[in-house]
């Protein structure tokens, strides 16, 4: 889930549960989550070097055309 959408939903839920004090903490958490996601390549996320087959084929075609 996109973190902007996540934060909006979480903040709405916190309000609905009578926990408005949670909202600034959720904003801090969103920044931390974004930082963690941004570090996927650094942490060698298993899909980080995944090249989709159609991209690979396109690359082969490009090379053949040259």
């Amino acid at each position, binding site marked *: 889930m996109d973190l902007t959408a996540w934060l909006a939903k979480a903040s709405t839920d916190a309000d609905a549960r009578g926990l408005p004090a949670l909202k600034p*903490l959720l904003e801090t958490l969103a920044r931390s989550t974004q*930082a963690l996601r941004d570090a996927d390549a650094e942490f060698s996320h298993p899909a980080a070097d995944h090249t989709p087959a159609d991209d690979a084929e396109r690359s082969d075609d490009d090379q053949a055309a040259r």
Partner: protein
Amino acid sequence: MTKLPGSLREAAGLVERREISPVELTRACLDRIAAGNGDLNAFITVMEERALALAARAERSIAAGKYRGPLHGIPISLKDLVDVAGMPTTSASRVPPRLPAHDAPVVTNLLRAGAVIIGKTNLHEFAFGTTSDETAFGPVRNPHDRTRSAGGSSAGAAVALLEGMCFGSVGTDTGGSIRIPAAACGITGLKPTLGEISTDGVVPLSATLDHIGPMARTVEDTALMFHAMLDGEPRLDRVPPEAAGPLWLGVPVPYFFDKLDDETARLFGEVRAALERAGHTLGDIPIAHAERTADVYLHIVLPEAAWYHGPLLERYADKYSPGVRLRLEMGRYILAEDYLRAMHARTVLRRAVDRALEGLDALCLPALPIGAPPLGAASVTIDGASEPVRAVMLRLTQLFNITGHPAIAMPCGTGRDGLPRALQLVGHRGGTERLLAVAASVERQIIGGDGSVGGGTG
């Protein structure tokens, strides 16, 4: 008794030689608790009757020639997250306590070693904090300055040791909860290798990050406690030999040195210089990805804590301290994808620390970036910048909960502000014994019995 023995080892020698009786020793500790606990809030439950019965039993056993080892007849305390059969485990909360039918395995092991359990100590509620001012049993006050925190979460344990209310304590450490109060109070605390001491029968915070370990006044006392806490045949007569020859120590820069207050930086510099003068080699060593530590930690500890507390939050939300409740509620919003992302990062961080330790005896760094903060402080100032107190206090310890490496905090002097500072040594995974040997060398050669740098004998 006018003067209590200064260490567990000294007390054990007196008990073994029958120069002091376990009952006498236990009464002396109970007297200290009665005199100091009202203000310091170190203990939640004092088990006077049970402790005196255990001490009397130990006395009879020793008189009959059945001395079991250095813990026999020695008063120790347990953090009140640890189950003792028939005693409430309060977790320092207004949430109704659990009443366990069985002792936690670590308690069984300590009783087998002949220890006298004297009571259960105060903590940051459910171990979810570093300042121990969110507790249903009064804020734990630092004996060095009673307006200041004793750290957390195992603060009562550290204060009890410092004040002579017991000779050893059992703490828990999920992000630094043994090492932080040890540093704030000027005692010694060990987080062993992950899984080395059973966490069964202990109220969890994070199943992945929780460790249980000993706290005491010296490295030797910490080692004696550690051996008694392990499962299996007791290794009670073992004292860590000092590491032979020069040590090779890595100083993990830059992340762990980015945010230190002036006195912590100054005293660490003195320790480093003293170690080098003593013939040891210290070299700067980076730990890859260390700057990601807090993000990874947060995405593991929050959902795991929320998982345990979910049912309790549904029933007793208003019983939690507001700050603890909000942190637990935050964990209920973390997506499974991000939790698993952090768990994957954990394996990478573990390899990074393994690599940093290659060819070294230990990593060497401060245990806490600041002196004990004022009770109730939400932020502290470092280099003119305001920093959240909780994040700062966890900064130097939490990586080694993520990676599972053993780590020990030990005093390294007192700042000009009158507050203790502490050194942290981090060993190889599975190498807790070796870490204790390294720490024993550093303690003897560098720290000295009075806790001052250069006060050692070597």
